């Protein structure tokens, strides 16, 4: 059997990319505008908040603890050489609150929920359930997408706070048990290191990441074509795209906040 390779011109690829960006932007804008239009599906939003927030709690607890402990372990081995073990609290605190807490939580929830949204909505597309919803006079962006955006942004904010806290506890465990750092010394340095800018940075990011995860997951779900194979493809693409977008946006948000508040 001869294998046929179809060559696609770069122009076509660029056109398709531009179209995808346009569709994603329109879907996101429409879903955001739905927050100000009736009906607002609060019941669906609460259900999604439970699925996304409570459902992601175990994975966030585990990763938060692990990352905090690893951060303390790696930094302590370096700091020990210069007799600076007392600085572990500062490093863990800054690292977790401004960067690793939001980022790791975002990536974990992206892996778990962007895929879930893409596969759920994708399955609804291929089984004509979305068409059925439209035919029944209900706007799927209002009923399905807006509640997911609200729930993800809201819950990621709190999940990040939990991850930050657990990261600090993980760091304390390592610092205290392995390096003999005093409890009060650790927590004082954790507390005193943080300034408004750090907390602001660490809490604005999860809201943005939540928006990215839900809109990318819903976009890939709603644009699913090609049956069950298409659902699988959408799911993979949703995780990859949301993860990459989180990393890119993280960089620019950090840079922007540095530009606004100045470097430490």
């Amino acid at each position, binding site marked *: 059997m001869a294998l046929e390779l179809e060559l696609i011109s770069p122009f076509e690829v660029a056109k398709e990319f531009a179209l995808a960006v346009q569709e994603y932007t329109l879907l996101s804008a429409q879903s955001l505008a739905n927050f100000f239009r009736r009906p607002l599906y609060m019941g669906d939003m609460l259900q999604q908040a439970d699925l996304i927030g409570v459902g992601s709690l175990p994975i966030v607890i585990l990763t938060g603890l692990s990352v905090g402990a690893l951060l303390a372990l790696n930094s302590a081995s370096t700091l020990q050489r210069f007799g600076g073990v007392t600085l572990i609290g500062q490093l863990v605190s800054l690292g977790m609150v401004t960067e690793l807490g939001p980022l790791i939580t975002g990536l974990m929830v992206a892996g778990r929920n962007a895929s879930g949204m893409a596969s759920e909505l994708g399955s609804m597309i291929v089984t004509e*359930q979305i*068409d059925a919803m439209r035919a*029944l*006079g*209900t*706007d799927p962006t209002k009923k399905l997408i807006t509640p997911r955006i609200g729930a993800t942004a809201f819950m990621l904010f709190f999940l990040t706070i939990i991850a930050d806290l657990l990261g600090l506890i993980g760091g304390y465990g390592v610092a205290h048990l392995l390096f003999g750092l005093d409890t009060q010394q650790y927590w004082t340095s954790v507390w005193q290191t943080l300034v408004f800018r750090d907390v602001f940075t660490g809490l604005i990011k999860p809201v943005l990441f939540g928006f990215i995860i839900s809109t990318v997951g819903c976009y890939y779900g709603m644009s699913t074509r090609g049956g069950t194979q298409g659902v699988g493809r959408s799911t993979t693409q949703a995780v990859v795209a949301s993860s990459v977008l989180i990393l890119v946006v993280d960089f620019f948000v950090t840079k922007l906040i540095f530009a606004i508040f100045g470097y430490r």
Partner: protein
Amino acid sequence: MPAPTLPSANTAAAVVSPSDYAIEFENVSIAFDDNVVLDSISFRLAHGETKAVFGVAGSGKSTLLKLAIGLLRPDSGRIFVLGEEVTRMSEQELFELRRRVGIVFQESALFDSLKVYENVAFRLMEEKLSPEEIERRVREVLRFVELERTYDMRPSELSGGMRRRVAIARAIITEPEVLLYDSPTGGLDPVTSNTIVELIMKQRDVAKTSALMVTHRLQDAFTMATHEFDQATNQMVALPKGQRGEVAMSFLILKDAKVIFDGDAHELAASRDEYIREYIS
């Protein structure tokens, strides 16, 4: 005999307004990439009439239904449903119109995460009716399709025929003025198919709902043309020979993206068109 020609859209518009029909297609065309699915087709569905739509697989039958309810937009032409020009309406305006139209999808398209009563009650819940009123109407309509016992079940627990009947219940719960059926008996055994045909007939003869019924099964449409629903016995009865074809039932056949026949059972039986003769034989 060649297929009956359709009156010109312009002439028709001058005589009767589109609101005199439940559905009217005027020179509607749609293509997906290079594949022309419907090419300038025109037809009308009168109020209270059921029109069976035939054609080989891929002839655009399901597309036609999706165009009628505004789920797809035509490349050209105009579509009127209950006097409203669907082709000029925004999605938001369409949501309002769709509350007056029911559709039964080919694979039922029940929401698999919801129970049967939630599926059937979907529109009523959206309209924020009281829970008592919703339960009363859901039970009533499930009784109509003889599936009241499935009230608390999930779609995955139902057979194909039961799913199709639940989809019909969901479509008729708001007593729509127009119903669109997409292969309602496709892939079902003859007994279940007969039950579905009886339900569609009941809807036609009791509720007097206008309907477009896409089907591959000619025998279903002929049953509908030769029987009527008897409310006293709650079953369909054959019409006497002289009255056969006298019910509000017509046929539309699509071929090569065009309408090649649009008429009643008598005209279909009398057709001399080779393709139609072969199709109905």
